[in-house]
């Protein structure tokens, strides 16, 4: 089921959360809304769900006009950053909620809940209360609860934002696998560019209530539309008018005609990757990304004088 938002605007008092935003989410795709806090990505998601009413513009889900409709009538599954678990209900009651309010037959509910518990790997915890679960378990419960009602679209609002790095990585891989199996149209809001790139087919970069670029992860990284996208999606150096990724800088020990001098300020070893922080002769900071072997060959150390040359650069 596709999602279409057309010219959606939303203000909160003087703050413009969404400024004439249009968005197209193709049926069966997984799209990430990526942006810093206050960029309007969550507001857009909540407008799609009906939890927020846009001041102007329209929202369609699978070609059906939804703009004025209540969340109940939209057929969306929504997952909240802070889980929004029903604290007084057990895990299975949480998951069964959507089916129970629809007055589904008891056998059917029991079966569906059992299936979902298996899907989110919470089989043994059906009788627990949310307060007895870890953050990751709570969010899996939140996902199962949203999926229980067979939503037309799945909307996730920073679903892994409150979890620690390891659990976050696990869950995002799991989400991607789930999507590959179910092909439910999914929109995930995140401020983490790595999460967006890893999980989504297409990334919508937002800033100050506007869409800056819509592109596949690779395209986004390689051909960013403007300076904001360039600087938000991955680390970047500003050298004069040019923008250079840290891995697009060549580092040599002898000067040649096109190199510039810099001094090594810090060398950070991150396993396979080694990051060197340099200060150029004009005082600018530059970050260079090397492989472990390259760094070993150069025998980089603090205070050393090196020479850098961009192998690829972008000018807007």
């Amino acid at each position, binding site marked *: 089921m596709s999602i279409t938002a057309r010219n959606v605007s939303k203000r909160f008092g003087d703050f413009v959360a969404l400024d004439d935003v249009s968005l197209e989410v193709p049926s069966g795709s997984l799209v990430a809304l990526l942006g810093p806090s206050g960029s309007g990505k969550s507001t857009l998601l909540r407008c799609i*769900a*009906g*939890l927020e009413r846009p001041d102007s513009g329209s929202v369609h889900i699978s070609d059906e006009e939804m703009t004025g409709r*209540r*969340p*109940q009538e*939209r057929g*969306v*599954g*929504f997952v*909240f950053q*802070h889980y*929004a*678990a*029903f*604290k*007084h209900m057990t895990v299975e009651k949480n998951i069964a*909620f*959507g089916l129970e*309010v*629809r007055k589904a037959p008891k056998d059917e509910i029991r079966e569906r809940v059992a299936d979902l518990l298996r899907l989110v790997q919470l089989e043994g915890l059906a009788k627990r*209360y949310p*307060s*007895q679960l870890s953050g990751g378990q709570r969010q899996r419960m*939140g996902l199962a*609860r*949203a999926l*229980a*009602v067979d939503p037309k679209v799945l909307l996730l609002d920073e679903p892994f934002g409150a979890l620690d790095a390891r659990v976050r990585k696990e869950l995002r891989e799991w989400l991607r696998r789930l999507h590959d199996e179910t092909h439910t149209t999914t929109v995930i809001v995140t401020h983490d560019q790595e999460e967006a790139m890893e999980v989504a087919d297409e990334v919508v970069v937002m800033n100050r209530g506007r869409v800056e670029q819509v592109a596949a992860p690779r395209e986004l990284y390689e051909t960013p539309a403007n300076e904001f996208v360039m600087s938000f999606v991955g680390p970047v150096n500003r050298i004069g008018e040019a923008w250079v990724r840290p891995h697009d800088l060549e580092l040599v020990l002898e000067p040649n005609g096109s190199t510039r001098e810099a001094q090594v300020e810090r060398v950070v070893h991150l396993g396979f990757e080694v990051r060197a922080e340099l200060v150029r002769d004009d005082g600018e900071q530059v970050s260079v990304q090397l492989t472990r072997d390259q760094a070993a060959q150069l025998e980089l150390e603090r205070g050393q004088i090196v020479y850098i040359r961009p192998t690829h650069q972008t000018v807007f």
Partner: protein
Amino acid sequence: MSKFGLRFVALGYLAAILVAPVSLIFWRTFEHGLHPVWVSLSSGNTLHALELTLIITAIAVPANTVFGIALALAIVRKRFPGKGIVNALVDLPLALSPVVVGLSLLLLYGRDGWIQLPFRVVFAVPGMVLATIFVSLPFVVREVVPVLREIGEEQEQAGATLGASSAQIFRRITLPAIRWGVAYGVVLTTARCLGEFGAVTVVSGRIVGQTETLTIHVEQSYDNFDVVGAYSASLVLALLAILTLVMMNVIKPKEPTQ
């Protein structure tokens, strides 16, 4: 040592202010044995006063529970002009002397008052109910508002996206989440209703056997040098208060809450 001192001061204060007077009631009630107490309690006027107190409480508590929850929801969840004023008005009964409340009801519903109803309001039960509702209004609201704020709106929004109607959201999500606030508010409201004297006494006209609540009965008996009667009725009030507190503990949470 200082910890010990603090404990001594706290317990001493509690003993002097609370325990001593209440114990004294028990002591003085049974000073001359059980018989005079029984005679006094089984008199028609005492029984009528007790009945009236319970009737008024049975009307005022549900009314203030329902409207208290509605008011709390409006204050926390809705935006409307004059919300600040409403929020402040809720506390008015706490700030205003009950006697003034009684007097204002007299002026409003009395013989030359602004509002004339086909049935008697002042010097009759309806007025006493109104006065009791007025003075016991804030408790449920004040207990429920912070709980509503704390649980936030997300659970309700999750319910909405899952297809629950407003009524289903209230019954299945909001109400269970606020039930301890409501229960505590109900206990405080009940206690206030049982013990209300000032406002009710003004609008009651103190007609013995007709508009006399238990608190008024205590005072009337004492004024008439019926010491045993006053103490016996006080004892009943004290027992009702204890019963309310016990009820509160009986309906304790059966499941873990955060």
